[in-house]
């Protein structure tokens, strides 16, 4: 219909204006990678999210926090270890096991009768443990650079997953004219090209629990999928509900349009 087209065109035009933020000069545009969760019906590849969690746990977590994540998130609906047996993720055995594998002081305010902080195994309600107590400690251990929190990293970068995947697989030999400070690496997908993160992934550095071959591309794709899920854990529910809402509104629109034709049938306008 004509009106719908006008609406769509207007919104497209305005949306374009809004998102056309300028892009850094010499930065390479990220690859267009296909993701299982792309598109209006796309769902997360659960196996990939599970493997991606393993990559995060064994590689990324030594420098990067995920402050917004709780262990229970891993077992909630749509999460990598969700199970129909445990509708309450706090009861999920895999989640409990993962949480309990970390023993530490979880909360400085959680004290014993002597007033000392309590060290105990983790519970599903605990947050993912951060590798450093504070920003200063993180910088001191990383040559002055601050590894960003990864909870929202896919949403917090333009081009989201594609950027992250390109970055993780995009390390190159530095060109002769680049001026890298000690502790910097060349990555043309990173703004400015000089990144303080050493190439984090290489073929075979971990052994996947499900036996998948741990190639660089495989791990980059898996961990990106995991981080994508972590940033948007309700995506599947959201898309499913969206389809139902649109079907409902479409039927409603048709009925109201027919009513409109009926009401105006004998009126010149």
């Amino acid at each position, binding site marked *: 219909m004509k*009106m*719908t087209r006008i609406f769509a065109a207007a919104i497209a035009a305005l949306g374009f204006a*809004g998102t056309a933020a*300028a892009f850094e000069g010499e930065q390479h545009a990220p690859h267009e990678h296909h993701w299982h969760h792309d598109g209006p019906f796309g769902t997360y590849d659960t196996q990939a999210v599970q493997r991606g969690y393993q990559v995060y746990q064994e590689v990324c977590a030594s420098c990067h926090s995920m402050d*917004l994540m709780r262990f229970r998130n891993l077992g909630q609906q749509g999460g990598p270890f969700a199970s129909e047996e445990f509708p309450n993720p706090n009861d999920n055995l895999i989640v409990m096991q993962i949480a309990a594998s970390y023993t530490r002081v979880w909360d400085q305010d959680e004290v014993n009768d002597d007033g000392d902080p309590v060290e105990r195994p983790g519970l599903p309600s605990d947050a993912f443990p951060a590798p450093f107590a504070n920003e200063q400690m993180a910088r001191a251990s990383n040559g002055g650079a601050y590894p960003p929190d990864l909870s929202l990293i896919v949403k917090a970068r333009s081009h*989201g997953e594609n950027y992250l995947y390109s970055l993780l697989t995009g390390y190159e030999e530095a060109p002769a004219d680049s001026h890298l400070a000690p502790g910097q690496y060349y990555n043309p997908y990173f703004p400015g090209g000089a990144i303080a993160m050493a190439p984090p992934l290489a073929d075979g550095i971990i052994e996947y629990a499900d036996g998948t071959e741990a190639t660089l591309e495989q791990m980059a794709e898996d961990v990106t999928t995991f981080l994508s899920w972590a940033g948007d854990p309700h995506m599947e529910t959201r898309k499913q509900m969206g389809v139902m809402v649109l079907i409902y509104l479409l039927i409603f629109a048709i009925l109201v349009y027919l009513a*409109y034709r009926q009401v105006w049938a004998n009126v010149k*306008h």
Partner: protein
Amino acid sequence: MSGPSTYKPGSGVEKWLDDRLPIIRLGYDSFVDFPTPRNLNYWWTFGGILAVFLMIQILSGIVLAMHYVAHEDYAFDSVQRITRDVPFGWLIQSMHANGASFFFVAVYLHMFRGLYYGSYKAPREILWILGVVIYLLMMATGFMGYVLPWGQMSYWGAMVITNLIGALPFVGDAIREWLWGGFSVGQATLNRFFSLHYLLPFVIAAVVGLHIWALHVPGNGNPVGLDVRKGDAGKKDTLPFHPYYTVKDGFAIIVYLMIFAVFVFFLPTVLGHADNYIEANPLSTPAHIVPEWYYLPFYAILRAITFDIGPIDAKLGGVLAMFGAIGILFVLPWLDTSKVRSMRYRPLTRWFFIFFVVAALGLGWCGAVNPDDYVMGITGFKFLYLGQFLTFYYFAYFIVVLPVLGIIEKPKERPASIEAAVLGTDKA
């Protein structure tokens, strides 16, 4: 309301109530029997759409406020907790954030409708001015709402906009500190913005009440721009609002909601900025600070003034131009000298209007990019120059085009009445 009331209480209870508080009569006369020109097109449905979106924003906002924490250490996390842990929080947050954009899309289309069909002309000047007041309140509400998630763009956007106040001579610094509640955007700023962001939508609702009141005195304008005739002939020009326009508005509202749903459910973040998923950090300035898309044309006007004008330096000049771009709308009813309302009958002005729309969109484009970049890669043709040209046109449209063309333009012949236009004796 225009014309005598035709409400007849249908039951004893309604009669009893009508003698004491004639509220049903008010509703009946305003939204059921209200005589509405029979030739309104779909551009007239945005008023109803806007009413729906004001309600969506208020209702979703009240729920969000139940979970939001207005504290610089917790605001960012609390919004994340809403989308992650509050039941359907992801839905409510997405509706509220995208609802703001759809509210502005509708208000811009509503305003362009008014500009094209001369809705601001006598006897609807007050109606128009109230509309501009609502628009200003929406801008303030939207700006403060965008600060609340306390992401990088929230913080730095607030910094840029509040710093504009500092451009005012003599009193600028003092007013800016008073707005901040300190010496920078911080806890005090966030807290008061939250308070005002909660207050202003109710002020908007009140002004919307006045807007509708002012609408119902002269009644709706219409695409041919003719008045409804007096007396019985007027009946042939109009239809009762219900069912004719309730069903037409209803259809438009549902179609608009469908487009809204596509964004809420499938593209919830495309209208936002990636940097706002990074928590506010006063020590790290983003590479490009851009406001929400609905402010971009005004942002481009702000940045277009790069030169001093006599005693006014470039910064103050930009601020004055930006506020002037909205301020000029208040006096628009007296700038347009033409007696003809609808642009359908103004062959020359029509083209200037169409280019005005293009200029507004073009300014939005200029506002989104770095002013030193080249337009479509054409060397030397900076976005800055395009923005300056379009800013010039924006003001010239109001100050030169409308006053002059109203005098020199020869309008096309108009139909005798709305009825005549509808019956096809007129094909304009």
